């Protein structure tokens, strides 16, 4: 068990007064809050060691570089990658996916196929649309079942030896569904397809072991794991990253530049052009420390308890439908109340100091699949409590009454 009260004390924003009550923050799927140790690391960076990395002979620069690379090591061990060379820092999940999709433009041939799913976030759709269009490849979409599970039968039937890449989310940000990644990896690999996982919603909620899952690429964002905005990670198997052409170019990612011929640096620097988000990367280690101190499995259990409790209570509300009822779910609940617009619910909850997300959750195709404009979404993090859920349920009931 975890000590939620102790954990909550570490989050300054949780004790913030919004609209005259304490903030109840249930929009963790969008971004998580940062504990004091992460905030302090950023601050200390600027107060004590701010310097450009990888280039300088002076003390500050060496120190910043060391801290920067320590963070890479920390990410490596957090996701159990084989080598630090497999950890590329980007500005977010979206950029990580774009980096790979851009590289696949020159890897894919005409009539090759890329599989995505109906439950993807726009960030794992549009890059592949552009990539496939460019390469003359075909983008195919694995359907989602009524309960929010991926349709595994369809997936199997759609895989074939033209499939070069399968790109899907570990956990759906709109449904909460946890996809069976290990199985899908095996399946995909059996057809010779590579696999990229959008781990944005998984990384701070369940254990991610890239070697055990045997994924080829894994993408996530620091701001969804109690860390800073503007930092992401691309994990890729070393040999695959080696085969991928460079993405952005400029300082840092080169070995030698001349007007005749430019050669690129080794991994991971080949993909890290320009001055990175140094403060953000360094504080990512503090985020990982925070998570590991509590233990990812403890976080998972805690959020699971919240999920079960909230689901039970929500179901008691008449005319409330939950979208996504997979047996294998993470702490995300999407719902609608009959004809009420999610936005109206969101506005009223906000008035009561409860932050939830409403809308299409950057998953318009999924909304279309379920024939809805959007949903109201509650999503949990380690600092949330049963008490907050109770307040939220009461607030939903009050909103419903006001709106009907």
């Amino acid at each position: 068990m975890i000590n939620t009260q102790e954990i909550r004390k570490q989050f300054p924003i949780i004790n913030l007064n919004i609209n005259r009550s304490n903030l109840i923050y249930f929009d963790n799927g969008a971004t998580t809050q940062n504990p004091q140790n992460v905030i302090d690391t950023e601050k200390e960076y600027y107060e004590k060691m701010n310097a450009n990395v990888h280039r300088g002979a002076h003390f500050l620069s060496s120190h910043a570089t060391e801290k920067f690379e320590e963070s890479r090591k920390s990410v490596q061990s957090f996701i159990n990658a084989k080598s630090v060379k497999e950890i590329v820092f980007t500005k977010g999940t979206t950029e990580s996916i774009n980096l790979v999709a851009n590289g696949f433009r020159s890897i894919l041939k005409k009539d090759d196929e890329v599989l995505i799913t109906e439950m993807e976030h726009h960030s794992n759709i549009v890059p592949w649309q552009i990539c496939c269009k460019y390469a003359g490849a075909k983008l195919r979409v694995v359907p989602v079942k009524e309960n929010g599970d991926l349709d595994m039968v369809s997936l199997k039937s759609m895989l074939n030896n033209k499939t070069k890449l399968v790109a899907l989310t570990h956990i759906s940000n709109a449904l909460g569904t946890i996809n069976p990644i290990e199985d899908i990896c095996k399946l995909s690999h059996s057809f010779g397809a590579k696999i990229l996982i959008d781990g944005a919603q998984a990384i701070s909620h369940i254990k991610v072991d890239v070697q055990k899952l045997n994924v080829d690429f894994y993408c996530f964002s620091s701001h969804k794991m109690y860390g800073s905005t503007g930092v992401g990670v691309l994990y890729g198997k070393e040999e695959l990253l080696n085969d991928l052409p460079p993405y952005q170019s400029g300082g840092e990612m080169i070995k030698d530049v001349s007007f005749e011929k430019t050669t690129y640096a080794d991994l991971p620097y080949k993909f890290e052009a320009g001055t990175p988000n140094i403060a953000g990367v360094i504080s990512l280690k503090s985020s990982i420390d925070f998570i590991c101190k509590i233990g990812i499995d403890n976080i998972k259990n805690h959020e699971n308890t919240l999920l079960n409790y909230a689901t039970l209570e929500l179901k008691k509300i008449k005319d409330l439908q939950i979208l996504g009822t997979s047996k294998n779910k993470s702490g995300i609940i999407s719902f609608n109340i009959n004809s009420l617009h999610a936005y109206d619910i969101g506005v009223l909850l906000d008035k009561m100091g409860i932050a939830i997300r409403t809308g299409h959750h950057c998953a318009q195709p999924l909304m279309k699949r379920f024939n809805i404009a959007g949903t109201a979404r509650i999503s949990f993090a380690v600092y949330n409590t049963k008490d907050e859920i109770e307040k939220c349920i009461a607030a939903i009931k009050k909103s419903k009454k006001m709106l009907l």
Partner: protein
Amino acid sequence: MKKSISMIQSDIISEFSMFDDWTEKYEYLIELGKSVPKIKDDEKKDENLIKGCQSRVWLFVEKKEDYIIYTADSDAIITKGIIALLIRVFSYQKAEDIANSNLHFIDKIGLKEHLSITRANGMLSMLKQMKMYAIALSKTQK
């Protein structure tokens, strides 16, 4: 004669000053929203759609003699409530008056957040659109 824009704004501000808390205010907004006549679905064309990330707004403008008449609808009821207020202020006013108006009531009655640049709803774009149309008309009239 129809009241001036600034007079209507004052009316609204004093009406809202009577609410004790946010609940009453929003209940009133919701009521207002429900009272806005719905636009038929087949009239909700894309060219009239003002799109926000969250709620959608359809805006129609017509001119009768010297006056501009706005009609609008939204799929969210609170958005409709605010729309009702905007229409009350702007509709049946002269283009020039709308163009030169200074809209402060939204702020005064504590609904500013609904007009923020968050793109979460179409309100700010709607307001801009209402004004732009009036500005365009007031210029061509001279």
